[in-house]
C-alpha cells in the first residue's frame, strides 16, 4: 500500500530498506530489532531529504512516525521490571486462603479488643488523686473573652490602615510554625501583640489568631495574664507526655 511516488523518503539501513511507514508497521509487530536500528541515521537521512523536497503533510506524517519509532525503541532499551515474585492470586483456593488468613488475624484483634475492653472497664473504676494545681497552667488568669478582646484590638488596628495587602496564601500551619519560631527565640515569652507584626494584614491577623488557638489546643503554648486587662503573654510549652486527662479521675 506504500505509494512510492518520486520524492517519497526511503529508509536505507543494513537490515531494512523501504518506506518509513512499512518500517514502523514491522517494528510495531516486533519484526524489527529495534536495539540495532540506527534511528539517528534515519533521522539525519530524512532531514537531508526534507531539505531537497519539502512537503508539510509529508513532514508532519514522517515526524510522527519517527517519534513513534523512538518511543518503541526507548521502551525496548529500558530494562524490563523483573516478573513479580508471587504471581497474583488467581487461584480460587489461594484467594480463599488469603481471605481466611486476613479474617483470622482480624478475629484475633477483635478478641484482644474484648480483653482490652475489660481492662478499660476495670481501670475506669480506678480513681487517682488529681494533681493539686497543674504546675503549668495553660491559660493562667486569662479568660477566653480576654483573648478575644485582645484579638479585636489588634484586628481594629489592622483595619485602620487603608490598603489591604493582597492575600499571599497565608496558612494556619505556616503561622503556627512562625509563632513557635518566635517563642523559641524568646524563652521568657512574648506579649500577645508581638505575635502580630505592625504591617500584618487583617487576613494575617485572623489566621495568626487561629494558629494561636490551635497551639493552645495542642498544648504547645501557655497564655498568661497577670492582672485583669493586663498584658497577655504567650510562652512556649515543652510538650510532655502524660497528664493527658485520659486517666486522671
Amino acid at each position, binding site marked *: 500500500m506504500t505509494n512510492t511516488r518520486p520524492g517519497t523518503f526511503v529508509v536505507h539501513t543494513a537490515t531494512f530498506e523501504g518506506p518509513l511507514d512499512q518500517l514502523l508497521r514491522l517494528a510495531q509487530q516486533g519484526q524489527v530489532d529495534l536495539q540495532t536500528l540506527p534511528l539517528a541515521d534515519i533521522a539525519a537521512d530524512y532531514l537531508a531529504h526534507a531539505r531537497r523536497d519539502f512537503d508539510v503533510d509529508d513532514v508532519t506524517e514522517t515526524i510522527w512516525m519517527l517519534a513513534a519509532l523512538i518511543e518503541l525503541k526507548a521502551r525496548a532499551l529500558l530494562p524490563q521490571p523483573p516478573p513479580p515474585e508471587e504471581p497474583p492470586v488467581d487461584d480460587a483456593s489461594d484467594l480463599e486462603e488469603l481471605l481466611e*488468613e*486476613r479474617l*483470622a*488475624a*482480624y*478475629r*484475633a*484483634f*477483635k*478478641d*484482644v*479488643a*474484648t*480483653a*482490652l*475492653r*475489660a*481492662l*478499660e*472497664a*476495670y*481501670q*475506669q*473504676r*480506678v*480513681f*487517682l*488523686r*488529681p*494533681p*493539686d494545681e497543674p504546675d503549668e497552667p495553660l491559660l493562667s488568669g486569662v479568660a477566653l473573652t480576654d483573648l478575644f478582646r485582645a484579638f479585636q484590638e489588634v484586628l481594629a488596628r489592622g483595619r485602620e490602615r487603608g490598603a489591604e495587602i493582597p492575600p499571599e496564601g497565608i496558612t494556619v500551619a505556616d503561622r503556627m510554625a512562625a509563632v513557635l519560631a518566635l517563642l523559641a527565640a524568646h524563652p521568657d515569652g512574648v506579649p500577645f501583640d508581638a505575635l502580630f507584626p505592625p504591617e500584618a494584614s487583617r487576613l494575617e491577623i485572623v489566621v495568626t489568631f487561629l494558629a494561636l488557638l490551635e497551639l493552645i489546643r495542642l498544648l504547645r503554648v501557655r497564655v498568661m495574664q497577670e492582672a485583669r486587662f493586663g498584658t497577655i503573654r504567650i510562652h512556649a510549652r515543652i510538650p510532655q*507526655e*502524660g*497528664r*493527658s486527662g*485520659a*486517666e*486522671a*479521675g
Partner: protein
Amino acid sequence: MTDPRIREAANAIECVLLVSGEPVRLDQLVEAAQAPPEVVIAATELLQQEYADRGLEIQAVAGGYQLGTRPAYAEAVRRYLGAAGREPLSQAALETLAIVAYRQPITRPEIEALRGVRSEYILERLEERRLIKAVGRKQTVGRPILYGTTDAFLRYFGLRDLSDLPPIEAFGRGAPNAAAAGAPVNTSSEP
C-alpha cells in the same frame, strides 16, 4: 517483725504515691525515699499486702506504681464527685488501638489493610487522646508515619508494660483469654 528500714521506706513511698496521682517509677521512689532499690521493692510489697483489704490499692502501671481507688468503690466515688463515668473508647477505636498495640510500629496503610476500612479519623482521635503517637517513618515509598502506643496507653488499661498486654494468638481462631474474663491482678512486685 518488719525490718524498720522497710517500714520507713514504705511510709515514705505511701506519701509519695498519694501526692503523685500518677505512676511513680522505681528510680523515683529510690530517690525520694533515699533507700536502696531492694528495700524499696520490699516496701512496695509490704504496702500492697497492707492495702489488700483497704479501699485504696497500689497498682504496678506504666513502669511505675500508683495509688488509686479500688474499683469496687467506684460508685461511692462517683456519687461523691457527681461525675458521670468516663466515655469508653468506641469499638472501632478499640480495635484499631489493639492493632497498633500488637503490631507496633505500624503505618496507617498497614492498619487499613487489616481492618479493611479507612482509619485516618480514628488514628487522629487516638493521637489526640495521647493513646498513640508517631514514633518514626517507614523507609518506604511515601515515608508513611509509623504509630506506636504511649505511656498514657499503658495507664489507660492499667498495664505494667507492653509485655503485660493480653496474649494474642498470632493468627489464632477465637482464642479467648483470661484477661477478658475478669480484672487484672496487680500484685506483682516488678514495675
